[in-house]
């Protein structure tokens, strides 16, 4: 894994007529975990999308070194397909032969035959993490990764984030829940 870097300089975001934030500076290095917090509508998701390059900044710039793994409310798994088939599509796109260990790790290995539309929100979230783990990207951008997860799932995700950052990855998490890992920097948007 190459050493990731994520730098935002003088970043501003506008949604409609409102400027959500301006002059935002970030410099994240390998091992950094950043927890974005703040009330609804303050621009957490927008900031993540800017960092991912899915949106263009209103002002300022974002520099990324390393591939981005993305988790948000959309699972991007075909609802009509069995989970295993839906995940295999992403394995083909990513050109990886995924180990069976990731579904097992996230506790979805018994669901691989079940169509995605029958899965609960939390199960879909776990499946999205399987796809994220299959890909080994150094930068993780996670939007509300703990939503819909039970305490066991949340603990697993926190452990995964800690492991990822411990292994030289970097991670930005937007979440209303506290992220129970060491060395996490908390950033309050709109404060």
């Amino acid at each position: 894994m190459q050493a990731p870097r994520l730098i935002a300089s003088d970043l501003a975001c506008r949604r409609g007529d409102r400027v959500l934030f301006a002059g935002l500076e970030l410099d994240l290095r390998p091992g950094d975990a950043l927890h974005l917090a703040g009330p609804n509508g303050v621009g957490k998701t927008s900031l993540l999308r800017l960092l991912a390059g899915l949106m263009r900044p209103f002002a300022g710039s974002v520099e990324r070194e390393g591939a981005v793994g993305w988790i948000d409310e959309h699972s991007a798994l075909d609802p009509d397909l069995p989970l295993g088939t839906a995940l295999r599509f992403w394995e083909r796109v990513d050109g990886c032969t995924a180990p069976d260990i990731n579904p097992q790790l996230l506790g979805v290995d018994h669901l691989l035959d079940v169509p995605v539309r029958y899965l609960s929100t939390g199960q879909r979230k776990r499946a999205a993490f399987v796809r994220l783990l299959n890909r080994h990207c150094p930068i993780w951008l996670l939007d509300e990764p703990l939503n819909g997860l039970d305490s066991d799932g949340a603990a697993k995700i926190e452990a995964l984030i800690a492991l990822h950052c411990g292994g030289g990855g970097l991670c930005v998490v937007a979440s209303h829940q506290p992220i129970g890992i060491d060395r996490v920097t908390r950033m309050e948007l709109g404060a």
Partner: protein
Amino acid sequence: MSPFAALLRRDLAAMFGSGARGGAALPVLFFLAVATLYPFAVGSDARLLAETGGGVLWIAALLAALLPIERLVRPDLELGLFDQLALRGVAEEASLAARILAHWLSFGPPLMVAALPGAALMGIEAQTLLNLELGLLVGTPGLAALGVMAAGLTAALRSGAALGGLLAIPLAVPLLIFGAGSLDGNADGALALTGAASLVLLALAPFAAGAAIRAARE
């Protein structure tokens, strides 16, 4: 497997499968329904049927191609598929080109087969049928591109499907004019123009729809 091949495989499986995106048989059934109903409406005048039948089959093919517009792009946009692909460096244009190819494979060749019983119902002559088949061969890729383009442009809008249909039909007029024009006599020029119109749409569609999907993110 390259992302393009993976996407094509997924799209084809979805279109020929039984899920919500499935229903590749639907355009063909629609096409055959028109071909079956038309003689009932026009009556048993064999000459009239044979003369107008080819044009009706072209209209049926055009509308059949636009039938699945609602399912072509919108479900994947709502699913977040294009975001995940963009983060993997797969351009929207590439995934939409795969979608156009899959869409064409799901209705183009089946329509060409369905045109055989359709032509028989109308009593169309062999030469006209040959021109119809050739016209469909060069014209349906353009219709597929047009369908995906309209679907992409309206994917982020409410009641996009109806709007997509309205948007696509005027753009399909050149294909219809040249395609139906190739049915009688002097076919070569008309077929070439059908192909030209088809190519223009094919060249334009991935970029237009891709730009629309990127714009929907902002």
